[in-house]
């Protein structure tokens, strides 16, 4: 365990000095600042106003930015470290492979999640100081969703890094995965498929398997309980799961997916050439 935390801490220190982390933090910090500047807390959409409205917009924007950001930065830095000889040196030290792999994942998770979370906390504090009501339930749920989403794409990212032999391949694979998930959102290909008479079960299965769609539905359902703003698949899903069931699914499924992909990545990493 000591080696795992040592590796995690080392990865955190490496990330703190990396350019990607500075850009990442700046993007999410600026996002919240921008939402305040635009006066989003004053606007009202379907009954939501104040901090709830701001958080809804923030979480929607996070869904658009976070997956691709996490995927690309993870595969770039890990595959880049491998290419540049960082792995060659550090893996010649007596660190157990499990501690190395999971330590890196833990350190990277903290670095990916913390800026997104702190930006949301910052918004909450600022709103609170301005006298706005703090939506604790929404905040807790969205924190859980952000954890799930970060972990999910981090797991996919580290899996890609485990099998890709170069930065270019890793980056290409990450981008294609993100693009496929994006295309199979409810309002894009999935909507078209339903229009083309694809069986509803298939469309629903795809929607349930796509972590981005799960996250999207999960975030929107509090804001839009009938999911009228969403596409047809989300409507079917809500009918089958119910609100609470789907909230639980939206938290558990991406977490499980991230864990499984990370685990496969670990198995492949341990079995193959380490560098």
């Amino acid at each position, binding site marked *: 365990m*000591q*080696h795992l935390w*040592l590796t995690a801490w*080392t990865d955190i*220190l*490496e990330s703190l*000095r*990396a350019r990607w982390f500075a850009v990442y933090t700046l993007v999410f910090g600026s996002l919240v600042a921008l939402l305040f500047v635009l006066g989003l807390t004053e606007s009202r959409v379907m009954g939501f106003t104040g901090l709830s409205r701001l958080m809804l917009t923030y979480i929607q924007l996070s869904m658009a930015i976070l997956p691709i950001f996490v995927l690309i930065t993870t595969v770039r830095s890990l595959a880049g*470290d491998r290419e*540049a*000889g*960082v*792995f*060659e*040196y*550090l*893996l*010649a*030290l*007596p*660190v*157990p*492979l499990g501690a190395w792999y999971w330590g890196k994942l833990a350190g990277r998770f903290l670095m990916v999640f913390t800026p997104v979370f702190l930006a949301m906390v910052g918004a909450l504090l600022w709103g609170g100081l301005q006298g706005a009501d703090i939506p604790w339930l929404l905040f807790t749920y969205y924190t859980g969703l952000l954890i799930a989403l970060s972990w999910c794409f981090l797991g996919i990212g580290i899996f890609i890094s485990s099998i890709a032999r170069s930065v270019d391949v890793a980056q290409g694979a990450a981008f294609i995965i993100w693009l496929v998930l994006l295309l199979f959102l409810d309002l894009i290909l999935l909507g078209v498929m339903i229009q083309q008479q694809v069986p509803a079960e298939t469309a629903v299965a795809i929607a349930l398997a796509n972590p981005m769609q799960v996250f999207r539905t999960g975030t929107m359902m509090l804001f839009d309980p009938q999911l009228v703003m969403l596409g047809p698949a989300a409507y079917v899903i809500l009918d089958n799961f119910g609100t609470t069931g789907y909230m639980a699914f939206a938290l558990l499924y991406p977490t499980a997916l991230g864990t499984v992909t990370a685990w496969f990545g670990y198995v492949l990493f341990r*079995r*193959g*050439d*380490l*560098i």
Partner: protein
Amino acid sequence: MIQIRNLRKRLGRRDVLQGLDLEITRGQRVALIGSNGAGKTTLIRCLLGEYTRDGDVSLVGRDPRRFRTEVLRHVGFVPQLPPPLKMPVGQLIRYVSSLCGAHSDHIAEVAARLGFDATRFRHQPFVRLSGGQKQKLLIATALGRDTDVLILDEPAANLDPEARGTFFELLAERQKDAVMLISSHRLDEVAALVNRVIELDQGKVVLDDLVADSVDLASRLGCEIHLTRPEKAFAKAIGAWGFVDVDHGLAWRGTVAGADRLRFLGMLSRYAALIAALELRETDERTLHSRETANA
């Protein structure tokens, strides 16, 4: 210490190692030479357990792949190219010492002997150090702890002559207890350091020879050079070896590490037409004494 039986490694469609058989025992200092693509780096990575492979590899009696932490505790490794680590010097030393159960102070002491002040640079990211400083720190992390197997990939390439001398002394302190595998493109770079030469070519051993172990790694040679005329280029080159001008550019005096004599003479050969007189004499009393004792 190191046993290799029928070691094969394929990368893509290429057989990089083609059935190597080697046994390296304690006290052997092996030059691993060969041109680019000969398989040196692949062999080193197999020894470090970083590559899967066919055949048997054993270091200190164990497979480095299956028992990596136990094996790697005994191994000090210096890579050819310093990794672009962003962590500060102090953190790197702490990380290595924590993993290896070594003392940070000891690593810092070795770095200081090589001319690198780890305390002064403790907050400096490793990647921002100069090539020589990085090399010194990597050598310190390998030699500043208890290791039986030293795997050094072009270890002295970026070192100044003074640091090279200290590096040879550090190797000399371990030469009886450890196995050293020193990889290089060129034999003359490492010839004076080793007592066995293994040459690889296209993944096979094409030369495996014991060589005369006549150079004491810790010895130093006093040297005085007289020139026919002062020459700026020579002054710059000899200045890099720490020599001082004792006669308006016509005479130079300094010391050279014994193991570095071939490299030093190689440098001098470029200025052969300028040299009027040259004297090289062993100055290390301990070395002379040990020679006399051995002769007696």
